[in-house]
């Protein structure tokens, strides 16, 4: 199949050149596509995304397939050009996040990190199991949560989930 090159977006290509200059090394060999476990089942298409990203014909906010990457890093490991598709996809996601597009599951996870310092919830079951196993309670201290929260406010995740 061919790659569509509509809506050429210079600004997007410049941005990508700044945040992921290695992306421009992509030679379209397709090595990433061959090894991607998601593409095998109709998920993300790394080689195609690389081409569209560097040619500026991709809008991260509308490209829902960005979120179908399992981040197995096989693409980047196999890439013979050092173009690092896995990291380019991460950068594209971040661009989507800035544009307000985040899957609900991840927005919830981000909010949990901001408020509890953890990505997974501590539940009654957690406490019960820890007690039965003779493990320390393992609560995240209020100071640690406050520090993590402050970092989020200064670095982007805070903005991403508060809009």
């Amino acid at each position, binding site marked *: 199949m061919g790659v569509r090159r509509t809506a050429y977006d210079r600004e997007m290509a410049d941005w990508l050149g700044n945040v992921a200059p290695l992306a421009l090394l992509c030679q379209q060999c397709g090595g990433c596509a061959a090894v991607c476990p998601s593409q095998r089942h109709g*998920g993300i298409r790394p080689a195609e995304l690389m081409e569209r990203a560097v040619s500026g014909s991709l809008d991260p906010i509308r490209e829902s397939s960005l979120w179908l990457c399992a*981040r197995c890093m*096989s693409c980047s490991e196999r890439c013979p050009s050092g173009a690092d598709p896995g990291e380019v996809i991460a950068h594209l996601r971040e661009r989507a996040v800035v544009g307000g597009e985040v899957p609900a599951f991840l927005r919830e996870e981000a909010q949990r990190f901001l408020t509890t310092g953890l990505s997974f919830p501590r539940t009654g079951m957690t406490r019960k199991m820890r007690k039965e*196993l003779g493990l320390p309670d*393992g609560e995240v201290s209020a100071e640690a949560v406050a520090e993590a929260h*402050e970092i989020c406010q200064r670095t982007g995740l805070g903005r991403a989930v508060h809009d």
Partner: protein
Amino acid sequence: MTRPLYIFPGCLIPTRLPFLEAASRFVLDRMGADCADLPGATCCVEPIGLRTMARETWLASSARLLAIAEEGGRDVLTLCNGCYMSLKEAHHALEDDLVRRRVNEVLGGIGREYRGEVQVHHLPGYLLEHEEGVRRLITRPMGLRLAPHPGCHMLRPSEVLRLDRSFRPEVLDKIASWAGATVDPGPEWPACCGGGLAGIDEVLSAKLLMDSVRGPQASKVDAILTPCPFCFVQFDIKQKEGVPVLYLAELMALAMGASPERIGLRYHRTKIALPSP
């Protein structure tokens, strides 16, 4: 000699799978490792979803954890592939003076600084480095046949993680053999369990999981062996084929004489049949 350690269990293990923490602590205790809990620990910034939402948040949050370890004069030991990738990649990125300066400006806001004087270890790597000590502690060789599942972030990106090779990895096989287990040859390019897509696309996630279970199911192993709690959840809870799973520290703890009760094997959803002692 390895420096003293801070155990960093992450958040999936302490919240949902504390029995894996119990097994890890048992093994480290038997090995006589000088371990303490990392003070002020938070999530490493989960590297599959959260980190991709805000790279700088991940970098600064991981740097904060490394800075705390540095202050305490101990290295970090992770029990989870995700934590290992997060912290090891951050450690690598922070070797660049410009990046470290930029991140330290953020850390300055919470009164911390990272200088770059701490190392990050992952449990399988730690065991590998202490082969003689581990072998000496095996009192109950586990005559199990296992299928190795290293999990993506024990291996890739290999030039940063530097724990095992990404093509035909061998570290799990080696360690399991010390515990008396037989390890089937795994796939040359180890599969992804699909855990990174759970919650986002369950159908796709299940297909990836099926891809990684097909081999172990066909060869009728006693269990899948993994050092990663995310993979563990996929195999133990999401998998429909009924192949049991063992976390690496569980295998080692059992082989070092831990009773199944002590390390909470009863919490496995897919029950595993152990050879009689």
